[in-house]
């Protein structure tokens, strides 16, 4: 579904991604883990069009998307749920969700999609009229994910959903992520929380200083010595 091939991204003169390649198929969770500054968010921003790769290609459903503007990429069926949630603070919960369905083709069905999202996150229906910035951390993350689903995406990119959340909530978020995969949405998950991420990921890549240093099935990577030492403190 998604084919990223040898992309190199720069911030001005500083190179942040070095020949990064990976593939993602339908109905799977692919995770990218790595320390702060490893380049995970840079990778995501390159895929969703916020940044442009200097070389390499990104194909979604066999069509090139590198170089397209973010609004064109979301039109193709990719939804990017950004790091730090980035909700619209002065808009209500409902309005944030509605903005997720901004594209003309999904705006028409937004009431129906809204119902689906409310079923997934009942608390959002309850807090419908509240301003987004008054929600708790966990509720905000749910709103961010809900908003990302409103565009009825084929691929959902979720950037560090566990950030700042209590362990119980993190587990809930990961359960929901698995549920989305089972419903047929491909998931690209970016996380610093290595153990829980590798437990649910079908396949995972480890990013360090802008390079892919390890790749493999989630559960298998958990057993690797390198991971245990560097990321799990064992």
């Amino acid at each position: 579904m998604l084919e990223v091939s040898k992309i190199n991204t720069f911030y001005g003169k500083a190179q942040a991604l070095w020949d990064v390649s990976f593939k993602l198929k339908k109905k799977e969770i692919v995770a990218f883990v790595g320390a702060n500054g490893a380049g995970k968010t840079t990778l995501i921003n390159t895929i969703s069009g916020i940044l442009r790769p200097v070389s390499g290609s990104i194909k979604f459903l066999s069509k090139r998307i590198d170089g397209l503007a973010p609004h064109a990429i979301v039109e193709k069926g990719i939804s990017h749920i950004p790091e730090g949630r980035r909700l619209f603070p002065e808009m209500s919960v409902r309005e944030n969700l509605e903005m997720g369905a901004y594209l003309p083709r999904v705006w028409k069905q937004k009431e129906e999609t809204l119902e689906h999202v409310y079923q997934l996150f009942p608390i959002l229906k309850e807090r419908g009229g509240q301003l987004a910035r008054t929600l708790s951390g966990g509720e905000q993350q749910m709103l961010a994910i809900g908003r990302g689903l409103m565009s009825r995406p084929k691929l959902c990119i979720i950037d560090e959903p566990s950030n700042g959340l209590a362990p119980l909530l993190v587990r809930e978020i990961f359960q929901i992520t698995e549920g989305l995969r089972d419903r047929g949405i491909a998931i690209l998950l970016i996380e610093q929380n290595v153990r829980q991420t590798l437990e649910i990921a079908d396949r995972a890549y480890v990013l360090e200083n802008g390079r892919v240093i390890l790749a493999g099935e989630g559960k298998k990577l958990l057993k690797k010595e390198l991971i245990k030492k560097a990321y799990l403190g064992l």
Partner: protein
Amino acid sequence: MIVTFLDIVIAGLLLGGLYALIAMGLSLQYGVARVLNISHGEFIMLGALTTWTLFQLHINPLVSIAICGPIIFVLGFLLHRTMFKRLLNTSESADIFVSNSMLASFGLMFIIQNLALMGWGPEIRGYTYLAVPVDLAGAVFSKNRLVTLGFAIAIGLAFYIFLARTRLGKAIRAAAQDPSTAGLMGVNINFMLALCFGFGAAMAAIAGVLISMCYPVHAVMGLEYALIAIIVVVLGGLGSIPGSFIGGFVLGLVGSIVTYFEPGLALAAYYAIFILLMLVRPQGIMGR
């Protein structure tokens, strides 16, 4: 005593309506496109002088609203697409862009002003339209000024509903709060910025049409209004369009009160308020 009070209040509202209109346009340009448009007054002037010319051709000023609005909208849209968009791409940071765009709009102001001087000459122009007295509970006002107030309120309300209820309106609010994330929702940010800049210019032009109905107009009238618009926008709270609407009326009332006691000091009073605001409550009435 009551009559005098009503006199002042209604005069304040009439003035305020105009101020609210010119401020809303500027607020839209600053809130979304992040351009502090010093040349905002020149779009007001263009609307005003074009209406004067059209009036000489026997075209009703109210019809001029429908003519000037769209034309200036297109002008504003194109200016953003070409000039300000370029600045946005080449500015190293958001703050640098704000100062660059302010400087650019300063230059734009001189260009438009001088073109207008070439086209219309330096003379002060005016015409009479609907200059019939209307009695409001003892206080007498000119019909054209009441029509102006009516339009200002109607436009303000329509704009508010547009922002609150429509798909495009919500997109504009989202773009003002977080343009990058709005892009992730599918909003074409480049188009949106130019659109808002155009809308802001159009609102200025419409205000200019209304001003020309009540006051004399000339090619260099713009700067004074631009400064008033800036004061109102800051008074209402940077980035808040309802704030600009309310701030306009507040400043109008202040102007009316000051003019009653000491005509000619109104402008000085506005600047005094601006300075006070910066010292005491820089975020304005509705600012966060």
